[in-house]
């Protein structure tokens, strides 16, 4: 049961990570920086609960605020460049954050024990859930409540003008500019929102996994973050969720057959999917097919 719950938790956190990249992908930008914001959110929330003894919700909240501000600041230089250069910039930023935490030390004596992030050794003993008597089910529920809230918010925003503005910028910046959309503001806003969501994911992750290590925040995680919405397509938030379940399930199953070689499978999978369906697995074509299939099934039932 614990193993199963762990998997559910990972899927939840990765869905949030994927959603943070999804918002940016709507505006047509591929950001490999989400793992960096994830790391900042994780360390901030963990430092607040461990060193300052905060309650978890305000800690995660402040974590989200800090990653949002960071994303806002990073957005300006990063978004001066387009497309591929943005990938390089965000990739570099992600690595910068990882190297920062590789060097970051803040040790504090608490009740006779030293706690806090310790550079290369990482940040262990993030025991908030254990110390406050949270059961595993409660942790999973907390994570998934947030996932549902974020998905609902994004879905709702997509039905309003905000969604149209984001997608307009994503489709054609020049055209969007001519109808009066401030492209720069939209892109920075998207980056900030993406940063906030990633910070939320990071805060939850830190407490769920109880120890942070810079190895967790590499380009691989950033690639996962962007692979989910690319695989899932930008037509719907549910695509990202399905993609997370698919990839995590695949990796878990792959572990059984291929053991350590499953990363090979992941790399090959990306290559194959990109060649076969460059617009993502759940592009508008696929969604239409699903809708038609469901309609046929229901109409047969009625008649």
């Amino acid at each position, binding site marked *: 049961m614990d193993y199963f719950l762990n998997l559910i938790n990972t899927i939840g956190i990765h869905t949030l990570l994927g959603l943070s990249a999804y918002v940016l992908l709507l505006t*047509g930008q*591929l950001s490999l920086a989400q793992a960096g914001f994830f790391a900042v959110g994780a360390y901030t929330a963990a430092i607040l609960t461990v060193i300052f003894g905060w309650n978890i919700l305000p800690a995660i909240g402040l974590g989200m605020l800090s990653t949002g501000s960071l994303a806002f600041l990073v957005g*300006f*230089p*990063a978004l*001066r*460049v*387009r*497309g*591929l*250069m943005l*990938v*390089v*910039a965000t*990739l*570099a*930023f992600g*690595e*910068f954050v990882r*190297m*920062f935490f*590789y*060097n970051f030390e803040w040790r504090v004596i608490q009740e006779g024990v030293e706690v806090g992030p310790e550079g290369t050794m990482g940040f262990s003993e993030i025991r908030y859930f254990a110390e406050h008597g949270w059961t595993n089910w409660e942790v999973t529920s907390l994570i998934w409540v947030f996932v549902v809230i974020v998905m609902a918010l994004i879905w709702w925003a997509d039905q309003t003008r905000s969604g149209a503005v984001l997608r307009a910028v994503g489709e054609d*910046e020049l055209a969007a500019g001519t109808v009066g959309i401030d492209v720069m503001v939209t892109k920075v806003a998207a980056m900030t929102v993406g940063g906030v969501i990633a910070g939320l994911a990071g805060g939850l992750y830190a407490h769920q996994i109880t120890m942070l290590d810079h190895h967790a925040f*590499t*380009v*691989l995680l950033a*690639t996962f973050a*962007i*692979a989910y919405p*690319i695989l899932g397509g930008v037509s719907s938030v549910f695509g990202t969720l399905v993609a997370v379940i698919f990839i995590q399930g695949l990796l878990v199953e792959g572990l059984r057959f291929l053991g*350590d*070689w499953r*990363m*090979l499978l*992941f*790399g*090959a*999978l*990306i*290559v194959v999917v*990109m*060649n076969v369906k*460059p*617009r993502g697995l759940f592009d508008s074509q696929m969604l239409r097919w699903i809708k038609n299939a469901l309609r046929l099934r229901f109409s047969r039932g009625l008649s």
Partner: protein
Amino acid sequence: MDDFWFEFVEITQSIGDGFLFGSTYALIGIGFTLIFGAMGKLNIAYAATAMAGAYSSLAIFIFFDASLIIIFIVSAASAAILGYLVYLSCFRFIPVHNHLAAMMASVGGLFFIDEVIVHTTRGSPLSFPSMFAEAYFEVGPYGIRGDLLFVFVIGLISTGALLYVLFRTRLGLATRAVAQQDVAARLCGMSIHSTNSTTFAVAGLLGGIAGAMTAAAVGILSPVMMLPLTIKGLIVTVIGGLGSIPGAIIAGLFVGSFENVVMYVRGIDERDMYVVALLFVFLIFRPNGLFGKTITRD
């Protein structure tokens, strides 16, 4: 006064050593920029193919005790073949306008190559034959390392050969034509796919040489070098300007010196952070890089 002089010598020595080592970054940067210039896409797997070339040459060295020249030739050739395979799997069949999908596919290629290397070598670093390591020239208070000088000379020769191919042969003419305007090139009867695959192979050759150079200068080959090399290569390409070969050369030499000075002043742990910070400085003040063509369309 003596202290200042000592520091001055040490720092200029770092700059000089970094400058010579920077030729490896310059070659990687040229490779990235060639592919970007020809196709408008980034091949994130490029540095990985370069290192894979170095690994295959190391294998040849271990099993057959090959000589220096053979090592470089094998590295270049295998990286060229790998480059062609990456083109086939990640770029050939993806629609031309879809840059992101091709790039994502090349990220997949990077993981694939990385995993293969990690598993073949069980993740442990291997020592690479260092050439001319014993040679050491003294010029006043400075010392010039023979192996770094060798690496620099190879870089010069490779760049010279590349420029010759690019500007004095028909293949180079075709590559430049496709880079400038592929529709017109096709109208003139050039095959885009064969020109692009040749560009990938040529970039692969360069990458293989760069991979062997890096391994020779550092003395070891380890899979953990792959990602920093990719990132630094990309940083060099962006700083030099996407699509500009002189930009990549100058940026590569500059980044090499810069990172070495930073390493002397702040230690190796923080060195790469400053290189990334340098990228962001350029992005703020000169987003098109030193010589980049102004990017007007995504």
